[in-house]
């Protein structure tokens, strides 16, 4: 009996008293035990909190009638290295880099969240419809996804942004958010469709159908709870990709319009100021460490969620 540990022990009285855990609660417990994922979550919490604090700081300044810290040049000679007055230093135009990094965090995280939201909305709808309808509609919808997968999408995004470059700030921001979001729902649609296909044949779905449930009820009551895990994982892993794409577009000069900043525009400004005589390291290190922390945190949390919802898949 060397493998007796693998045989489930009969439930003792203590277990009998404990209420049965739902799959969601089990996943949550597995997630909480994953140290890397929890560290990622803590990292994310710090970055998000500081970005919110930066936005609040700016708002307070506006309400008091003071100049907005992220766009106001400070007196003196710049760029200055980090000091007590400016913990992150200042940029070549004399603006406080701490304020700019925090505001930039708001924009970068916003782009990521917008992409995740678009991918959840369109991708889930597309995947469920395609998987549940089956047959002709499924073929057509998945063919569309295949063709769009084949498109070198970023080329079209660049084209879109370049061609609308002379529009107002708001239109440009909307185009930027939409363009990055529009790229990211394809993977979600495929993942959700795959799940729906297997759920459709599951016994509890058959039972619900036999009891007379209609399609909307089956989808909402039976399928969606089982789709939450994969959707959550896919959305979490969409965010870092969107943030990277935004920074890439920033480098090409297509990011958020100045004087607004994102981590991408800050990093690409820092690279423009790069020269072998004077090393303004803080210009690059500050925004990039925030960017790196966010991307790592998101990747850890995404991996943790995947392991938590599907323990066999590791």
């Amino acid at each position, binding site marked *: 009996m060397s493998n007796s540990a693998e045989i489930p022990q009969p439930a003792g009285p203590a277990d009998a008293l404990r209420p049965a855990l739902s799959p969601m609660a089990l996943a949550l417990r597995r997630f909480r035990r994953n140290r890397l994922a929890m560290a990622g979550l803590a990292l994310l919490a710090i970055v998000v909190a500081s970005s919110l604090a930066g936005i609040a700081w700016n708002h307070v300044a506006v309400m008091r009638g003071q100049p907005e810290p992220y766009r106001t040049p400070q007196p003196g000679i710049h760029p200055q290295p980090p000091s007590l007055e400016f913990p992150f230093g200042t940029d070549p135009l004399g603006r406080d880099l701490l304020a700019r990094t925090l505001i930039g965090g708001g924009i970068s995280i916003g782009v990521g969240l917008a992409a995740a939201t678009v991918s959840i909305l369109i991708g889930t709808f597309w995947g469920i419809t395609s998987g549940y309808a089956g047959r002709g509609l499924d073929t057509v919808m998945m063919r569309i996804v295949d063709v769009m997968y084949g498109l*070198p999408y970023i*080329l079209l995004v660049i084209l879109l942004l370049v061609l609308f470059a002379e529009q107002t700030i708001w239109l440009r921001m909307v185009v930027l958010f939409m363009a990055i979001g529009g790229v990211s729902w394809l993977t979600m649609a495929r993942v959700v469709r795959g799940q729906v296909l297997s759920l459709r044949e599951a016994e509890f779905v058959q039972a619900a159908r036999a009891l007379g449930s209609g399609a909307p009820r089956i989808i909402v009551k039976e399928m969606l709870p089982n789709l939450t895990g994969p959707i959550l994982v896919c959305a979490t892993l969409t965010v870092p990709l969107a943030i990277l794409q935004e*920074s*890439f577009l920033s480098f090409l000069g297509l990011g958020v319009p100045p004087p607004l900043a994102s981590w991408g525009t800050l*990093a690409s400004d820092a690279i423009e100021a790069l020269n*072998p005589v004077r*090393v303004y390291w803080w210009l690059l290190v500050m925004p990039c460490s925030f960017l790196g922390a966010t991307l790592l945190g998101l990747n850890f949390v995404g991996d943790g969620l995947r392991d938590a919802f599907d323990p066999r898949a590791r």
Partner: protein
Amino acid sequence: MLHYILRRLLYFIPTLLAIYTVAFLLMHAAPGSPFVQEKGLPPEVLASRMAEFHLDKPLWQQYLLYGWDIVSLRGHSSIKYPNRNVIHDILAPAFPVSLTLGICALAIALVVGTAAGVASAARPRSLTDYGAMVGAMIGISQPSFVIASVLLAVFALCLRWLPVGGWGSPSQIVLPAIALAALPAAYIARLVRTGMLEVLSADFIRTARAKGLPEHSVLLDHALRNAWLPVLGYLGPAAASIFTGSFVVEKIFAIPGVGTHFVDSALHRDHPLILATVLLYAVLLVVFNLAVDLGYAWLDPRIRYE
């Protein structure tokens, strides 16, 4: 198999047509005209310039004319570079440069990523494992232009080991290829590591070890072949990331490749050059994706394409 390839080739047509149509419509929906910068042109000159680029004709005629110019490989003269044919004078010399760079980067990503993944899976929780995974985290968490600039600053400006930029000698490929390879290499290392860890606990690995095979044979011949399948699935996205990454890396290292033309041509509303460049990238991507799918069948005999 042949049937499958033919069907996939047939799918290229709607994909490429869709890309061409979207690019064409975007180009015309956008405000601004190619000749807006040339202020003070006499109306006759403007009219003849417009006629040269079919801009006086209805949209559907332009659509067909530009399409035919590209399909027949005849090309059209560029707006930004007068008297230079977009296919023969601009893209034909630039394409081999970008292709060489892309292939080098992909090769580096595959070799470094696989080696790091195998090394860290062979001794989990060792110093090698943590070292490789920290490296992978840096690759995943920084944009390629930051990595490229830091490499440039350290190895070209401070240490002066390698040239700052340009194209022609092998030493000029090293830094840009590494910068492009960083992200895919990091992903591949993680994929290989998880794949290897899973495979290494399988029964046939225990058998291989039990019959006394040397450890490197177990790792490389038996485990890696199975652990490598997910990497193949990632190659399509990896190629796309290297293609798009080449826009910024070519700019940073002053490499005369196709990437630089892409953004420039869109900024200058150079219609013939935009369309030709978009289609060149599109063809590359779809051909590469087909090659990847065929590679699956070669690596995993269980996969059959009907």
